[in-house]
């Protein structure tokens, strides 16, 4: 049967062009409700202009000022929207259906912005590396294009070059992350994923010390990240084929069989469950990769270890928040009608993630790798809350993400302080006796480790309790048992590091603790403060997350 003769396939593709241009309706963009993202992207563009127009000496200050101002203004815009009830009663879908403005989106955007503000402080730290040729330098390469150890690198170092481009790159990544959990159609989801991934690939390659390792991390992250986003894109194609639309609400309606205007083509594809199941699975795969859940976690330890430590901290904290936000929205808004299919799969992923993360972490000898595997285990704990499929599930995940991201950022900021002649001393054997030599740094790191382990009076305990409670109420009791068991395994290696720091003799050739400027100090102080406040008085923040726990559709 030829397509032209078949009335079924004669469709708007040919008739659209014949319509009068007067009928074209200009899109209606709610700039006020999209302000947080627009401000951050605007600040990033200003950052690019600063790179182009300002002399080298002036760039660092200007970039730092622009980044802090942009992120703070965006956070103020999020607070403004939340105060204006956009998180609850006025929750709505903006930008012609592309972006949701609702409780979870605003909560996660606020978290991402605060985390990035602290991350900017760690990016801008210039007191840790020894003064090179009279210039204070940060953790980023003098000239990223120069071959490591080559003449060009030596000249760049001598001239005091620094890569101030990291600030606009960070801002572009933050812009993508703000859109990612708020994306309300699959196109926006994909674009946001790429917008925050591409700057992160570049940032990974920019370490000043151990550049070969850093470049290797970037190649691995880039190839695997691009591979996973291709899977995500093919999943999107299949879901689009199934539902004839990329909008979340429309796909959900088609999945539930609640659409009135069924065209013959739609009737045909709706009957094809393979499209829906394979498409959904591939989109999930792409998101689970970004989260670092176990079958898709292979990149995590290498990238976390190789990337410059401030970037690792930012990536570990903010990417996880954004990706879990997108995963929650996908599972709760697009595929709730399919939950009897995805729940068993996610059960399996959560169990394997928790156990594998905790068990493999026990064998690690590098602090950054240890924290990477610990982040995998934590992804498993958060997945337990995702599986709950009730309102407490959403709010507990939101709370956990907020608590976890500050602990992670603080822990990686402490890692930047412990240094020897070769830069950061990340091998665990070098950390022996650190708590005796520098009690303050040791104590601060111990607080973060206890929070990771989920000891009461830290934010980790409040988060884990909320997540496991929601999972148990959601009928995932077995998952809670596995979660508690792997928490116990994880507690072993966190405590082991604390014992190593405080109860073993310091080595004579051990690392020194660099005295940071006010930037890193405040980053660590904010981390400790959030950890303790969310641990001792979590009630207000749990209620805040509870109020934010409803998705708009």
């Amino acid at each position, binding site marked *: 049967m030829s397509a032209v003769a078949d009335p079924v396939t004669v469709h708007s*593709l040919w008739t659209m062009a014949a319509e009068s241009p007067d009928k074209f309706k200009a899109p209606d963009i709610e700039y006020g409700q999209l302000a947080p993202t627009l401000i951050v992207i605007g600040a990033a563009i200003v950052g690019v202009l600063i790179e182009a127009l300002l002399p080298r000496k002036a760039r660092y200050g200007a970039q730092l000022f622009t980044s802090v101002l942009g992120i703070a203004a965006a956070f103020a815009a999020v607070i403004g929207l939340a105060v204006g009830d956009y998180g609850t009663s006025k929750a709505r879908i903006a930008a012609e259906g592309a972006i949701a403005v609702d409780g979870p989106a605003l909560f996660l955007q606020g978290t991402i912005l605060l985390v990035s503000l602290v991350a900017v402080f760690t990016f801008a730290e210039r007191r840790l590396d020894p003064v090179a040729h009279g210039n204070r330098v940060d953790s980023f390469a003098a000239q990223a294009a120069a071959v490591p150890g080559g003449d060009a690198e030596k000249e760049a170092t001598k001239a005091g070059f620094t890569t101030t481009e990291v600030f606009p790159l960070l801002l572009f990544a933050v812009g993508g992350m703000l859109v990612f959990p708020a994306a309300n159609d699959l196109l926006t989801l994909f674009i946001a994923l790429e917008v925050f991934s591409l700057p992160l690939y*570049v940032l990974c390659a920019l370490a000043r010390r151990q550049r*070969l390792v850093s*470049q*290797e*991390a*970037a*190649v691995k992250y880039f190839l695997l990240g*691009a591979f996973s986003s291709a899977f995500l894109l*093919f999943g999107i194609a299949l879901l689009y084929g199934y539902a004839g639309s990329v909008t979340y609400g429309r796909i959900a309606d088609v999945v539930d069989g609640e659409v009135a205007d069924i065209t013959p083509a739609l009737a045909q594809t709706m009957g094809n469950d393979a499209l829906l199941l394979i498409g959904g699975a591939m989109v999930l795969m792409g998101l689970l990769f970004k989260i670092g859940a176990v079958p898709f976690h292979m990149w995590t330890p290498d990238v976390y270890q190789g990337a410059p430590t401030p970037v690792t901290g930012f990536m570990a904290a903010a990417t996880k928040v954004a990706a879990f936000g997108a995963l929650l929205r996908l599972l709760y808004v697009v595929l709730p009608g399919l939950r009897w299919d995805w729940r068993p799969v996610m059960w399996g992923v959560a169990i394997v993630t928790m156990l594998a993360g905790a068990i493999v972490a026990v064998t690690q000898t590098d602090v950054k790798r240890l924290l990477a595997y610990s982040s995998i285990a934590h992804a498993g704990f958060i997945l337990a809350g995702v599986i709950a499929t009730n309102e407490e599930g959403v709010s507990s995940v939101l709370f956990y993400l907020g608590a976890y991201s500050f602990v992670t950022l603080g822990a990686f900021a402490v890692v930047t302080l412990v240094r020897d002649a070769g830069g950061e001393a990340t091998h665990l054997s070098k950390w022996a006796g650190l708590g005796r030599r520098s009690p303050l740094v040791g104590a601060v790191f111990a607080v973060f480790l206890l929070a990771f382990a989920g000891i009461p009076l830290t934010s980790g305990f409040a988060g884990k309790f909320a997540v496991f409670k929601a999972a148990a109420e959601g009928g995932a009791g077995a998952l809670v048992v596995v979660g508690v068991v792997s928490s116990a395994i994880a507690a072993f290696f966190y405590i082991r590091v604390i014992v190593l720091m405080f109860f073993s003799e310091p080595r004579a050739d051990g690392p020194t603790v660099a005295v940071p400027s006010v930037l890193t100090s405040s980053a660590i102080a904010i981390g400790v403060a959030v950890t303790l406040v969310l641990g001792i008085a979590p009630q207000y923040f749990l209620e805040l997350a509870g109020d934010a726990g409803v998705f708009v559709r």
Partner: protein
Amino acid sequence: MNPINYLYLAALLFTIGAAGVLLRRNAIVVFMCIELMLNACNLAFVSFSRMHGNLDGQIMAFFTMVVAAAEVVIGLAIIVMIFRSRHSASVDDASLMKL
């Protein structure tokens, strides 16, 4: 011209790309295989667009092309950088960080 056939072709191209990523050892070839996967997605998008009679899929295809172009810029920069420092673009040589 049944659009289903184009979908089979898209799935086949995607599988060839995915197999290439897993089997080939040169970073540039791996990267080309990823591009092949993205193009397979594009073919699927336009075929579904034709089937459903709306333009969403074609718009997606445009966006995918732009994203693929941006990815080429970043990807080739990273691969060229690692080639210059190691004189090898093999993904097996990049193994400084093993357990």
